[in-house]
Structures are given as structure tokens and as C-alpha cells.
């Protein structure tokens, strides 16, 4: 059962939706299955809607008896009444197929209900000029030719055209003529082209009492995220960005955005990430309203292989990274990247993610017979050292890191250097230094020498231990 709404008065708005926006909104209040046929016409599937809007005594599935007709007429009247509340005048017709309903709505004023099997009878007197060629999927170039042909045949109304023999119409007008004749007969098997409501993945909640603690807030966030993720899941989508907007008791706002390296739709993972984020930067006052907006994206499709090494699960990895950030700080966790400069120990931390690894996949064979590269342990910051020199060459050294109680102390038994390095002379933090590799005899007997790299800062004339070879 299909209802068609034809707007007699279409307002001209500046918005792109124009005048038909209200018509679609009106249709959506009665059914989720709506077709936007033309600027002034919409069709909606109202099967079963008469149970909600019509008379309670009638529950027939089709327009085939008096009681059901009464029920669907009540539904059509309700549509007209609601349009009138919006100051719009509409025609509403209900029929067994959408095309018959469209023609009836355009032709008859007020409410029209066409019982099953009476389409041809009801539409028979309509002029052929009201026949909508677009419903028969006919190209605009052919419309004028067909109209001229029908006029030459002396056809004026739907019933004239409907009464022609099918074989003759097919012979003269082809398949387009057959489809047009079906329209004139009030028959149609066309599927509706449904309007997709705009996707909005947003959940909001106004709180009755301000919430100042994390635990009660987590319950509310959990509820909102469950709804949000269920909505995403029903549309086969995931999210890679979550925006949290909190209105606070002191009338200020608190916004946090979580960017995820991979699309997710697991509410538990998202909840924990949100809680870690709030914990890291808590709002200034109690929360009075919460809004969570998810950016919808296609979910991650990953094909694992038998011979690909195991990698951490992305969701678990994100949680682990969030926990590590909470434990040691945001700038202390990530992938190291050496900067393109000669300045010693210049690096930055990148966000660690599995997705970037997959891009640069170039598996290399294990090289068991490679020669081992000498390791170095760098002290951050370098240890200030007391160095005794003879003719500029270090002979004794003493340096200590207070925090770790480590010690570099003793006689320099072998030294190689100096090697001067400098750079960034155009910047205020210019660096010039003379480096030495030294072997320090350990004061503890039977211990091996400690191999250190030390340097003398040429500007400050101070000695530092940069690190040890290990």
C-alpha cells in the first residue's frame, strides 16, 4: 500500500532543499520508506501504518474492503491534517502501487483512496497530458514523438490508451509504449528509489545533576558509546575519530578529540580510550551535558596470512599505548626517528602504529652471519665530568649520575682523539666540541675497562661524558 503526497503550494526557500524539504520530512513522520519522486511529489510505503494512524478496528493488509478503506482514508486525512498544521495544502492518494498513487495525487484534490483492481476505473478519465513519462523510464527525446503519435491516434484519456491491444502498442511504440500503457492502466511493478536519511553519528545527554567524578561519568559514556557503536554497526561502518564535547557547570566547554589510527567500532575499547583521555586532561568543573560525535568511515578489512609474523591486535595496541602514555608520558612512547641533522642525539618520537608498518613491508631474510655492530649507550643529558689532562689529553676522569648512582671514575688508560665537530653556527645554540674515545680503568679489581665517549665543549671549556660503548 502506497501513499503519494502532492504539494499544491511549494514554498520557495533559499536553502538547497528548497520547497521539498518539508514534504520529505512530512513523509518520514509516517514511514521510513520514502521516495522523492519530484519537487512537488513524494511516495511512501504505508503498509501497516494504518494500524498506527488509522482506525483501530481495521487491520486489513490491502485496500480491498470497506473497513480497510475507512482505515487508510483516516491515515490519508492525518497526513493532510499535519500538512495543514505546517500551513501547506496537499493532495494525498493511496493505492496498491506507487505510480497509480502518484497520478491520483496529482489529479484529484484532497484525499483519494483507490481500492485494489479499480485503478484503471479511477484513473480512466484522466487526460493523457498528466501521464508521467519519467515513471516509465522513457528518455526526454522520445517523449515528444510518443505524445504526437498518441494524439494522431486520437487518444485523449488514460482509458483510451489502456484499451488498446498490447501487441499493437508493442509493435508500434516498442517496450516504452508497453510500460506507458501499464501506467495508464494503473498497473506498475516499479521498485521505489528510497531516500536515505542523512547519517549522523552523534549521541547527546543532558544530565539532571552535575557529575564531577570519573566513575559515574564512565557509566554515562558507556551508554552513549553503546548506542553510537550499535548505530555504526547497523550501517556497517566504524569510526576513526571520536569527538567528546562536555558542557560544564561553570558554563565553560571542554572538548577532546581522539584520532584513531585504524577504524574501530568496539564500545569497550572506545570507552577506555575516552576515559584515559579525560583522566589525562580532566575538565575544570562538573559536567552537565555530554555529546559524543563519531566520524563514520569504512571498517578495517584485514586479511591475515599464514606466513606473516604475528602483530599486536590494533585495538589492544591502542589501549596499551594509551596506558603507557598514562604511565610514562606522551613524549616518552613511540617510534624513534632520527632527524636530518649532524647535531648529536637529535631525534623525535613518532606515534607507533601497525598501519604504517604494513605500508613499508619489505621482509628481509634473517642474516645470521652478519657482523655485530658496536652498541652505544647515550646519557641524556650528558654527565658533567671532571677531567685531568696532560698536554690536552685526558688522563683521569670522574663523572657521576646522581639518579642512578652510576660512576665513571679512574685513570684513562687509552685515549683516541680529539675529533672536533661543530654545527648550527647560524643558530643561537651553536655547538662545537672535541670528542675523545677513552678507556677508563675500573677501580674495582678484575673488572674490564669502561669504554666511554667524552667531549669537551669548546665554548664553555667543560667536559662531559656522552655515553659508553657497550
Amino acid at each position: 500500500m502506497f501513499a503519494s503526497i502532492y504539494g499544491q503550494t511549494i514554498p520557495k526557500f533559499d536553502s538547497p532543499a528548497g520547497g521539498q524539504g518539508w514534504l520529505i520530512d512530512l513523509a518520514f513522520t509516517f514511514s521510513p520508506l520514502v521516495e522523492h519522486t519530484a519537487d512537488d511529489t513524494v511516495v511512501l510505503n504505508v503498509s501497516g501504518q494504518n494500524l498506527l494512524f488509522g482506525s483501530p478496528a481495521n487491520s486489513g493488509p490491502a485496500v480491498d474492503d470497506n473497513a480497510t478503506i475507512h482505515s487508510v482514508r483516516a491515515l490519508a486525512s492525518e497526513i493532510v491534517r499535519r500538512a495543514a498544521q505546517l500551513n501547506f495544502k496537499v493532495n494525498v492518494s493511496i493505492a496498491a502501487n506507487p505510480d497509480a498513487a502518484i497520478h491520483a495525487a496529482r489529479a484529484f484534490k484532497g484525499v483519494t483512496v483507490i481500492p485494489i483492481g479499480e485503478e484503471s476505473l479511477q484513473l480512466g478519465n484522466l487526460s493523457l497530458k498528466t501521464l508521467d513519462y519519467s515513471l516509465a523510464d522513457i528518455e526526454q527525446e522520445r517523449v515528444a514523438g510518443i505524445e504526437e503519435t498518441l494524439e494522431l491516434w486520437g487518444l485523449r484519456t488514460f482509458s483510451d490508451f489502456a484499451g488498446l491491444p498490447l501487441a499493437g502498442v508493442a509493435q508500434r511504440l516498442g517496450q516504452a509504449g508497453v510500460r506507458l500503457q501499464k501506467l495508464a492502466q494503473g498497473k506498475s511493478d516499479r521498485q521505489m528509489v528510497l531516500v536515505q536519511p542523512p547519517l549522523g553519528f552523534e549521541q547527546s545527554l543532558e544530565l539532571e545533576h552535575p557529575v564531577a567524578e570519573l566513575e559515574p561519568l564512565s557509566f554515562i559514556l558507556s551508554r552513549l558509546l553503546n548506542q553510537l557503536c550499535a548505530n555504526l554497526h547497523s550501517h556497517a561502518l566504524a569510526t576513526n575519530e571520536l569527538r567528546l564535547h562536555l558542557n560544564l557547570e561553570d558554563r565553560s566547554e571542554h572538548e577532546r578529540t581522539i584520532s584513531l589510527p585504524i577504524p574501530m567500532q568496539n564500545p569497550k575499547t572506545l570507552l577506555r580510550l575516552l576515559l584515559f583521555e579525560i583522566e589525562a586532561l580532566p575538565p575544570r568543573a562538573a559536567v552537565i551535558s555530554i555529546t559524543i560525535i563519531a566520524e563514520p568511515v569504512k571498517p578495517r578489512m584485514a586479511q591475515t596470512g599464514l606466513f606473516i609474523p604475528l602483530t599486536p591486535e590494533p585495538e589492544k595496541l591502542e589501549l596499551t599505548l594509551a596506558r603507557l602514555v598514562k604511565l610514562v608520558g606522551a613524549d616518552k612512547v613511540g617510534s624513534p626517528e632520527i632527524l636530518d641533522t649532524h647535531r648529536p642525539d637529535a631525534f623525535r618520537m613518532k606515534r607507533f602504529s601497525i598501519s604504517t608498518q604494513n605500508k613499508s613491508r619489505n621482509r628481509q631474510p634473517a642474516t645470521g652471519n652478519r657482523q655485530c655492530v658496536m652498541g652505544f649507550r647515550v646519557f641524556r643529558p650528558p654527565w658533567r665530568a671532571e677531567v685531568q689532562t696532560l698536554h690536552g689529553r685526558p688522563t683521569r676522569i670522574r663523572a657521576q649520575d646522581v639518579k642512578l648512582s652510576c660512576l665513571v671514575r679512574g685513570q684513562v688508560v687509552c685515549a683516541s682523539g680529539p675529533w672536533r665537530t661543530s654545527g648550527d653556527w647560524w643558530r643561537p645554540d651553536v655547538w662545537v666540541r672535541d670528542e675523545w674515545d677513552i678507556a677508563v680503568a675500573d677501580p674495582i679489581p678484575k673488572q674490564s675497562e669502561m669504554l666511554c665517549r667524552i667531549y669537551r665543549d669548546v665554548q664553555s671549556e667543560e667536559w662531559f661524558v656522552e655515553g659508553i660503548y657497550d
Partner: protein
Amino acid sequence: MLNANMKSAVAKKEIELALADRFGAVFQRRQKQPAEIVPTGVGEIDARIDGFPRGSITEIHGTASSGRTSLLLSALAVATMQEETCALVDTSDTFDLSSAAKARVDGERLLWVRCGGSVERAFKATDLLLQSGGFGLVALNLADVAAKYTRRIITSWWFRFRRSIENTPTTLVVLTPVACIRSCAALVLEVKSEGPVWPNTVSFDLENSDAKLTMKETRERPTPHLSLVTDSTFPPETAYLASPYPLKAGAASRLLTHSNLLQGIRIRVNQERPVSWITNPARFKTRLH
């Protein structure tokens, strides 16, 4: 007495056979599967122990400049080259990126956690990583923590770590100054330095305009203040200067980086656990690049 023991053994076997249909082979001793390994990348060590066993803890202990970090970098390089995801929990924030890059450690596959000297944070971070799963190699670097502190680490931590990675493909490598993991470690390696490898030096007199280069073996003694230093693998004519002072044109053609000052370390590795009858240590030499 013997008969009684035999009777009990026979009775036990009969009960096992009777229950075999219902419970399968639960009474039989399970054969230990050969452990999967992560190669260390050092041929001399891999020839003896194949590598670090997966699903268990490997401890590498030794004094400063003994070669622990070199061994770890080599293992990390091999693991990252094989597309394993690795993690390094750096207790005292001493991980050197330039030496790691020379060892060909892929930084994109390495999660570096800098704990700023806090042993407690390092253990918590390691626990989080092991619980997360999916890492091929997790390294806990306690090498710069004083031995008196590492000895105080409660054993339950090590039991917890061992339990976390049991039956997983993860291997946990711990660098310590002294052996402290005891029975929780499946493999314990003691690393010792057998001395550094210094470059050969060449005496040079600046006042003599017709200076002639002559090589001298001065590995054991301090190098002179002004010296031309050459790698023994290069002929003397390719000598280069290890001094900030200017040199006559044509005397030096190669540029020198600071790493050229020390050539490498000779390292000896003893396997302490599991105890083996064959106790030949593995010997290898680290290199600059």
C-alpha cells in the same frame, strides 16, 4: 619391597589404560616441544644456541662496556627485518639511535618506551606490553641500573613475566648488570669484554714539511696528542687524521667520523643457563658499521 613397587606400577598402568578411553593421554608425560627461537644475528652465538627462545625470558648480564647492548641491537635488527613488532623498555633512557640505525634496526617496527630512570615504571610498562601480546621481541633494559637495585627486584615479577609469555611467540630479553632473574630465565648469557680494538696509529711531525707516515702498533698505550690514525684494514697511504689541527695537502684524503676513533670490542659470551656440558664460550668482535 620390589614386588610392592612393581604391583603398584602395574596397577597404575591398568588404571591409566582403563581411563584412556575417557580422558585420553592425560596421564602420559608430555614431550616438550622444541622451542621456537629468535636469531641473535651473531653467527658465533647462533651456531651454539640458535637464538633466544620464544615464550620465555632470556637474560644477558655483564658489566659496562661488555657488549650487552651490541648483542641486543643485533637481535632487534634481525627481528625487525623479519617484520616482527618489537618493543624496548628503556629504564634509564640510554638507547642510542645512531648505533641502532647502523645495526639496521627498523625504527618503525620498534616501540620505544622511555622510563626516565624509574625501575617501577619500567616493570609496569613491560607488564603492559607482555599482556598486550603480539610482540615478537620485548627488551627490558636494566643495564644502567645499579646491581644492588637489580638484586632487590622481587622474584614474583619475573614469575609474572614468565607466565605472561608462556606459550606465546614473544621473547623477553632482559639486560642486567648482574644475574638476577635466576630460575625464571630459560636462557642466561654472561657477556664479557676481552678488550677494545683501537685503530693503529701513525706518528707525524707537524714541523717537518716533508712528513713521512710510519705505522706503529699502539693498541695498548695512549695515542699521541697529534696522530694520524688509520684503520688496519686500509693501506697506509689512505691514512686519515684524527686531529682538529690542519694537515698538509695530500696527507689525508678520507674524512673521519667520531666513531672511527674506537674500532670495536672483542666479546666473549658464556651460556650460564641451561647448564651444558660443553662450556666453550662464543667469541665475536663488534664493528663500527
